[in-house]
C-alpha cells in the first residue's frame, strides 16, 4: 500500500502526530510525506529520518501561511498525478480541515481521529472514539483513496534515524486566487499543548476554596472568587512547570472564569490521553471523565472521598490540595533534580 502522510507544521516546527503518522504508514507499505510551506526543506529531511521513503515538497511563498483552500488545491493536484491508496493526516486543526476538504475534492470519506487501525487483505478497518470516548466505533470506507486522520499519541512515534535519506521530489503549489488572506497571528499563553502533552496537571472548581487565604480588600464577591482561583491555579501551574506538563481545567473552572477556555479538558473541550493526569480539586463530572479517561496513570487530589474522579484514579489523596500541591511540587523538584 502506498501511503501519503501530510506533515502538519507551524513555521517549520512539525506537530509530533505527523511523525506518528509516518510510523503507521510504514506498517502498511511505502510512505510519501507531503511537506507544504516555504523554507521548509529541513522538514523534508526530518521526514526521511522518521521513515518516509519519498518526500513531495511544495516550497512556495504562496504556501507561507496555512490556508485551507490553497493547501487543499495543492494536495488535490498532487493526488491527480499520483497513486496514493491512503492519505494520513494528524488530527490537528489543520490536518482535520484539510482531510475534510480533500474528501470532497476526491469524492471519498474521512475516518477521523482514529486510535487503532487494522489491515487485512488490503482492507482497512479503524477504531475511533465517539461521544468523547464514552463509546468506540469501528469504521470502514468504501471509496478510494482512503483518508484517515490519526489522534495524537495514539500511535508510537518512530525512532528518528539521523542521516537517513530518500527521494526528494519538488512539486508545484497550485496556482490560483484563493479567497482568504492571513493577516497574522496572536500567540497563546505558550507552554505545552494539551493534546501533545505527556503529563497534564488540571484544576477544577476546588482550586478556589482555599480557606487560609485572605483576599485583598475592595474586591466584590466574584472578583474575590477569581482571585482565590488564580492563587489556586498558581499552585497547579507550579507543579506543571516542574513536571514539564500542560495545564488543564474542568469545564466548571472555565465557565467560572478561572482560566481560559483552551485549557478545558472534557466533552466540550479537549480530549487528552497523557501518560500522567493529575486532577486537583476536580470532582469528575461525566463530561470531564470522558475527556481524560484513557490517560495512563490518573492521580486525583480532592477533599471529597466520594468524588467520582477516584473511580478512575490509580492514586488518590483525600485532603487539602492547597497543602498537598506545594509539597508535591517540592518533592518532584528534589527527585527530578530541578
Amino acid at each position, binding site marked *: 500500500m502506498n501511503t501519503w502522510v501530510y506533515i502538519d507544521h507551524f513555521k517549520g516546527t512539525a506537530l509530533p502526530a505527523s511523525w506518528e503518522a509516518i510510523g503507521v504508514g510504514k506498517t502498511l507499505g511505502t510512505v510519501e510525506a507531503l511537506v507544504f510551506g516555504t523554507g521548509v526543506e529541513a522538514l523534508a529531511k526530518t521526514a526521511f529520518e522518521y521513515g518516509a521513503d519519498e518526500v513531495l515538497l511544495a516550497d512556495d511563498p504562496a504556501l507561507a501561511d496555512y490556508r485551507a483552500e490553497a493547501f487543499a488545491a495543492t494536495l488535490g493536484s498532487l493526488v491527480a498525478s499520483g497513486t496514493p491508496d491512503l492519505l494520513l493526516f494528524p488530527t490537528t486543526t489543520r490536518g482535520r480541515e484539510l482531510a475534510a476538504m480533500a474528501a470532497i475534492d476526491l469524492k471519498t470519506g474521512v475516518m477521523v481521529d482514529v486510535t487503532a487501525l487494522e489491515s487485512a487483505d488490503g482492507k482497512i478497518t479503524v477504531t475511533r472514539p465517539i461521544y468523547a470516548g464514552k463509546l468506540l466505533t469501528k469504521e470502514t470506507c468504501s471509496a478510494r483513496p482512503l483518508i484517515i486522520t490519526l489522534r495524537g499519541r495514539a500511535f508510537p512515534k518512530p525512532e528518528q534515524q539521523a542521516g537517513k535519506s530518500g527521494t526528494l521530489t519538488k512539486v508545484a503549489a497550485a496556482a490560483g486566487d484563493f479567497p482568504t488572506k492571513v493577516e497574522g497571528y496572536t500567540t497563546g499563553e505558550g507552554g505545552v499543548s494539551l493534546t501533545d502533552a505527556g503529563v497534564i496537571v488540571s484544576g477544577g472548581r476546588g482550586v478556589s476554596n482555599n480557606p487560609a487565604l485572605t483576599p485583598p480588600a475592595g474586591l466584590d464577591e466574584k472578583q474575590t472568587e477569581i482571585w482565590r482561583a488564580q492563587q489556586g491555579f498558581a499552585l497547579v501551574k507550579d507543579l506543571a512547570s516542574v513536571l514539564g506538563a500542560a495545564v488543564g481545567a474542568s469545564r466548571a473552572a472555565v465557565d467560572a472564569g478561572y482560566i481560559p477556555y483552551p485549557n478545558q479538558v472534557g466533552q466540550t473541550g479537549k480530549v487528552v490521553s497523557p501518560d500522567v493526569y493529575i486532577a486537583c480539586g476536580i470532582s469528575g463530572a461525566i463530561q470531564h471523565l470522558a475527556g481524560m479517561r484513557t490517560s495512563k496513570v490518573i492521580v486525583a487530589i480532592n477533599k471529597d472521598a466520594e468524588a467520582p474522579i*477516584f473511580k478512575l484514579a*490509580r492514586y488518590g*489523596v483525600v485532603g487539602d490540595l492547597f497543602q498537598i500541591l506545594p509539597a508535591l511540587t517540592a518533592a518532584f523538584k528534589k527527585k527530578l533534580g530541578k
Partner: protein
Amino acid sequence: MKIVVCVKQVPDSAAKVVVENGKVSWGDAPLVINPWDEYAVEAALQQKEALGGTVTAITIGGEGSKEALKHALAMGADDAILISDPALANLDTQATAQVLAAAVKKIGGVDAAFFGRQAIDADSGLVPAQTARLLGWPALTLSAVIKVDGGSVRVERGVEEGRQIVTAKLPAVFSLVKDFGEPRYPSFMGIRKASRAVIPAWSLADLGIPAPASVIAWPEIMNPPSREVKCDFITGGSPQEIAEALSDKILAEKVL
C-alpha cells in the same frame, strides 16, 4: 446579514451513553441541541444584533429534531427549516455536507453559514469545511472572533499555536468555538414564539438533489474496555509525607 445556522440534536452531554444489544443507548437523558451549536446560534444572534438581518436555523432529522430548531427559535432565531427524508438516515459527513450545501443554496442570498465546531455524538468536526468546499465558500473554521465590515470579514481562528487572523469575502462558512460567551437562555416570549412556530419540512425532492451516498460504514459500536483500577489512597502523615509517598509511586510507574 443573512445567516443560516446548521444545528444537530444529540443526547445531553451529561448522559451516560452505552451500547446495549449492539445499539447506542442514552437511557432517560434528554435529546438537546448540540452544545457547540448553541454557541453558534449565540454567535449568529450577536451578528444580527450588530448588523441587522436574519438568522435561520436548519437541521437534518426526523420530526423529533424540531426540538433543536425550537430551541434556536426560542433563543431568538427568526425562522427554522427541518430537512427530513427517509433517505437521510445515518449519513456520513460528506453526505451531510451535500444536503446542507443544497439547503443553503435553496434558501438563497445567504451571507454566512454558521456551525458549532463539532457535534458531541460523532465528534467528527468535518461538516463545516466540507460544506464550504461544496459551496465554494471560504471555510473560516474554529472562529473565536468575527468582525464583519461590508462584504468582508475578519476572524481570529483558534489553532494549536494561538490564533490565526484571517480576512475573507462573504459569503463564507464559519465554525464557532466558545469565545462568544454563554448562550443566552430562551426568554419566556421566545419559548412561546417557538412553541407556536410552524416549521416547514423540506424533502430531498424540495432540495432538488438525489439521495447522497454515504461511503463510511460503522460495522460495530462498542463500549470502551472498562478501566479496572482500584484507587490506591495515600493516607496519613503530614502533607510532606503524603507528597513524598505519592511522588515515589508516580515515579515508580516510569512514565515521567
